[in-house]
C-alpha cells in the first residue's frame, strides 16, 4: 500500500472508531437475565412439547395394541360365551372391551401420576 493509502486507511480507521464511540461501543449492555430467562422458558416449553408428543405416540400404540387384543380375545372367548346364549355373548363382549378401556383410561394415568 502506498503512503497515501496508509494515510487514507488510518483516516478511515479513526473515523470508524469515532462512529463506534458515538454508537455506544464500550458502553455496558442491558442485564442479560431476561435473555437467560427467556431461553430457559423456551427450553422448558420444548421439553413439555416433546413429552406431549411421546405421550400421544404411546397412547396411539396402546390403543392399537388394545384393538388387536380385543379382536384376538373375541375370536378366542366368544365361542365359549356363545354357549350361554345371546345375553352371555353380549356380556362376554362387554367384558373384553371394558377391561382394556378401564386400564387405558383409569389405571394407566394413575400409575403415570405416581
Amino acid at each position, binding site marked *: 500500500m502506498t503512503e497515501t493509502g496508509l494515510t487514507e486507511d488510518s*483516516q*478511515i480507521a479513526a473515523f470508524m*472508531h469515532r462512529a*463506534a464511540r458515538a*454508537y*455506544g461501543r464500550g458502553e*455496558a*449492555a*442491558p442485564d442479560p437475565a431476561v*435473555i437467560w430467562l427467556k431461553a430457559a422458558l423456551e427450553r422448558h416449553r420444548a421439553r413439555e412439547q416433546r413429552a406431549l408428543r411421546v405421550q400421544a405416540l404411546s397412547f396411539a400404540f396402546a390403543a392399537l395394541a388394545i384393538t388387536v387384543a380385543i379382536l384376538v380375545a373375541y375370536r378366542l372367548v366368544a365361542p365359549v360365551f356363545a354357549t350361554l346364549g345371546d345375553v352371555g355373548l353380549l356380556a362376554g363382549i362387554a367384558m373384553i372391551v371394558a377391561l382394556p378401556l378401564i386400564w387405558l383410561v383409569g389405571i394407566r394415568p394413575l400409575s403415570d401420576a405416581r
Partner: protein
Amino acid sequence: VDAETFRRFYADSAPSLRAYLRYRLNDPVIADDLLQETFLRVLRADPASLHQAQLRSYLFRAATSVIADHFRCEARSPDALAVAAGQRAEALRGATGCEPELPLDVARVLAQLGERDRELLWLAYVEGFSHREIGPIVGVEANSVRVLLLRARERMAQLLSDHGLGPEEAA
C-alpha cells in the same frame, strides 16, 4: 451452557454487538430488542459446541440474520416500512436523530455510504474481523470481501475528503 458462562460471554460480547446493531439500525430501542433476539438464537444453537474464536463471528452472523428478518417483517407492513425508512433517513441526515449522540459530520458521511459498505467497514475496522470471518457474516466469499472492502474504502476515503475530514478531524 450454564448461567455464569453465559453471563461472562454476554459481558464480553454484548457491548460491541449492541453498538453494531445500533449502527445498522440507527434506533437504540430496536437495537436492544434485536440484541436479545440475537443472543437467544445463539443460546438455541448450543454455543458449547463452538470454539471461543468461532463464537464471536457466529454471534455477528446471527445478528446479521436477525437484522434481515427484522427488515423482512417491516417490509410486510407498508406503513411500518415507510415510518422506519423515514426515521432512518432522517436520523442519518442528522436532522432529528434516533441516535441523539451521533455527531452531525459522522451522520452525514454514513448517510452517503451504501448499506453493504457500512457493514463491511464496521466489521473490518471496528471489530477487526479478517476477510475470512467477514465472508460468512455478510454472506459472500472471502475473496469477494477483499474486493468489496477495497471499493468501500475508496468510497469512504472520497467521502471523508469531500467533507474535509482529514486524519485529525476524522478522529
